[in-house]
């Protein structure tokens, strides 16, 4: 039983790695094979052909594309991520702290939004068509319809500029400093992410819960004298979270991309702002690595969701061999 689950997880991890490999091919093809010339981007239009050729040789851009890819891949696999073109610093040093800052942001948003959406969704389903349900449905629909930058801007207007001056409109976080050292600066970005994910997930949770609450086994649980708490937590919840896991995973993965805009908005020193800078300066090694990281988040969250769904669904779990 336990071994079968382990085997399933290992198989999914192998599949995830394969996905990442394919993604790395695509990323490399799209960034490196494009005609845009990083050397020209760095040296400007006035640069002499000799200077350009010298820089290209330094970056290894004069080698055949396949060699460039294998160089890059072996580098990534051995921990040597290369050097940023724009800042001339090693990528590990340049990106590392930003990645951990962004992950911290993501983690707080996830830890906050998952239980929040489950509670809101479950309560809306329990009080179907009553005040809590209609209000939360309306509010979540409005919030879900707004893009993150609008939510972020409105929050800024309310909490830091026009109405109250409680919180800073931008994060003053030194690169490399732990993100929790600026709690005030962290509040608005986290809140923005929370508001952009929670409505959607809670609606999905509500739908899953409504379906479960209408089922025969819930009626049966009530008819054999279970109290409402047991009905909700023991009988309904395990059957409702399975489908919700998939949606939560997709949303977290989406956050990894959505975080770019939010970080930009609040000047948060994470992967989002690093990626935006790198794109502007055609800093290929940075773009490639960040794209790989975001793809990794997608693969990881989906893997967690699939494993989670299997773990809470006996019918799927017992089918594993």
């Amino acid at each position, binding site marked *: 039983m336990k071994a079968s689950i382990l085997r399933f997880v290992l198989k999914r991890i192998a599949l995830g790695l394969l996905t990442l490999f394919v993604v790395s091919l695509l990323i490399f093809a799209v960034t490196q094979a494009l005609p845009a010339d990083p050397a020209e981007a760095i040296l400007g239009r006035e640069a002499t052909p000799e200077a350009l050729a010298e820089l290209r040789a330094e970056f290894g851009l004069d080698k055949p594309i396949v060699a460039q890819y294998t160089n890059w891949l072996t580098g990534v696999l051995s921990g040597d991520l290369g050097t940023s073109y724009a800042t001339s610093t090693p990528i590990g040093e340049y990106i590392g702290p930003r990645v951990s800052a962004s992950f911290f942001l993501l983690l707080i948003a996830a830890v906050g939004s998952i239980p929040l959406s489950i509670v809101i969704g479950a309560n809306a389903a329990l009080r179907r068509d009553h005040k809590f349900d209609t209000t939360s449905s309306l509010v979540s629909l409005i919030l879900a319809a707004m893009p993150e930058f609008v939510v972020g801007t409105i929050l800024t207007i309310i909490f830091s500029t026009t109405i109250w001056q409680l919180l800073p409109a931008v994060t003053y976080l030194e690169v490399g400093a732990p993100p929790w050292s600026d709690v005030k600066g962290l509040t608005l970005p986290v809140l923005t992410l929370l508001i952009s994910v929670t409505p959607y997930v809670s609606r999905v949770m509500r739908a899953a819960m409504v379906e479960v609450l209408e089922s*025969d086994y819930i009626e049966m649980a009530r*008819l*054999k004298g279970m109290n409402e708490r047991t009905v909700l937590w023991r*009988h309904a919840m395990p059957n409702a979270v399975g489908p919700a896991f998939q949606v939560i995973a997709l949303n977290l993965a989406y956050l990894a991309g959505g975080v770019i805009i939010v970080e930009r908005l609040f000047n948060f020193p994470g992967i989002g702002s690093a990626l935006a800078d790198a794109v502007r300066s055609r800093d290929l090694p940075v773009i490639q690595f960040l794209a790989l990281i975001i793809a990794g988040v997608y693969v990881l969250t989906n893997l967690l969701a699939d494993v989670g769904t299997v773990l809470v669904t006996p019918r799927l779990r*017992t089918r594993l061999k």
Partner: protein
Amino acid sequence: MSSASGLRIIDLRLNVAATGNDIVDGVNLTIKKGRVLGLVGESGSGKTTVGLAVLSHARRGVEVAHGQIFCGDTEVLGLDAEAKRKIRGELVSYVPQDPASSLNPALRIGLQLIEVLEAHDFGGSHEARKARIKEMMTEVLLPGDDEYLERYPHQLSGGQQQRVGLAMAFACRPSVIVLDEPTTGLDVSTQEHVLKTIRQLTRDHGVAALYITHDLAVIADLADDVAVMYSGRVVEQGEVAEIFKNPAHPYTRHLVAAAPDIAGKKAIIGLAGRAQSPGKRPVGCAFAPRCELVEDACRVEFPAMVSVSTRHDAACIKATQVASVIVSSAKPESTRKIGEPVIEVSAVSAGYSGDTVVHDVSLTIRKGECLALVGESGSGKTTVSRAIGGLHREWTGSIRLNGRELKTMARQRAVADRLAIQYVFQNPYGSLNPRRTVGDSIVRPLVIDGKSKDDARRAVLEVLDKVSLPGSYANKYPDQLSGGERQRIAIARALVSEPEVLVCDEVTSALDVLVQAAIVDLLSDLRRQLGLAMLFVTHNLPLVRSIADEVAVMSEGRIVEVGPSESVIGNPQQQYTQSLILATPSIERSMR
């Protein structure tokens, strides 16, 4: 009140909460301890609503208007929420219709059993509760060891799931139990075991049992008393033998006449019309619009219960005369012309992704003949019929239509061959496109065939007439029709391409008995008039006697017995057939 009375329902009425229209009204029932009362009626008659009210539960949108229900000495409808929770499972328990969907798929059965005991503080200690569960599992003939209790519902068969449901219901030693069609969907041999267990447990523990079903034969077999519901009212009640031998309400009389019986050849008779939903029911007796004995007084107010004999009441102003007036006689038995073989199946084996589930099946269906293919679920009968219809991919052997070899799949077959074999599906709710008028659905094969619009329209009216529906039905959508009407449309759709062979796959199993009888009657007429060869796939053995000339009994993918239906059902030669027939409940056998 006397201690002999287990359950008393007094003047119960439940409404549709939104409109105040009655779903059930004026229900009075008494069940003594240790006795089983069968509550019969067609779908929508309100039997489940009454059953749930006994547990002081009303589904979404339903409310108790008035009435009292005593379980033992406790009136349950007036209890507050916490008190209701306490009596459920302890004083009165419930066995649901579909065990597969009523057991929580995410929880182990051991937990689902023990939590009932915990919720009612039964047994005092965890050990005592575990011991009680073991005891219950033994009583319902299941292993009670820890390995078994750690299984999830999907790891049990349907019959085992229903026994777990029974163990759960009897666990706290309730004095009243409501069983809502607990054997519908189970195979007859499984049903026999479950019924035996129910009978044993109710007798041994002195439980008053309300057994809800649409199957009269099960009632005859199991119950002591019976109450018949129609349109939310109890129209007749009394001792089982009394009511089956001498039904005093015209509706009951029709029900009994429409029920096929394994123990005797009987032409089953249907009845036109249908019961109306709450809010549309007529004033007075709801059965009046369908009743042959109707007179003006019937339409004024609901007739009072009159005593027919000491243990038998009926709500009909002509209760004492009914027996002499309605004579349920069948149409004269016509001679059927059976002709040349139309379908010849020889040595067909079929399977799913490599697993063979049908082994070496050979059958012949002649012109004008109805062959019934019977068997329990999983016996392979539907797979055979799908192979004939060209709906199954994996089969070997030979199927010939009028001597011509047929290709495997319908789409490889010639147009004429495709039109010649038509399929009618089990579920009339799923087999008609809800976004098309029934006329459009019927005309579809003709359009594909390239007929002109006028020709097609004429053909639609013609087939609607054949299935006894007015031409105006062509413009209706499926959701405007009743189950029986939909099945007629499905048959019309099959008939429009003028087939030689009609494959009917469990076509009556979703229908009530009166509707079933009418559909069977229609199919017999069509077979006679059009000389159709018919393959009638069913798990319903009693029905075979009423419709089929020949019967083939399947078990585990093989045909175990084949022959004229009269001799196979009346005098089976194979042990498997014998055991099937013995396990099938029968009114006639029970009344002997």
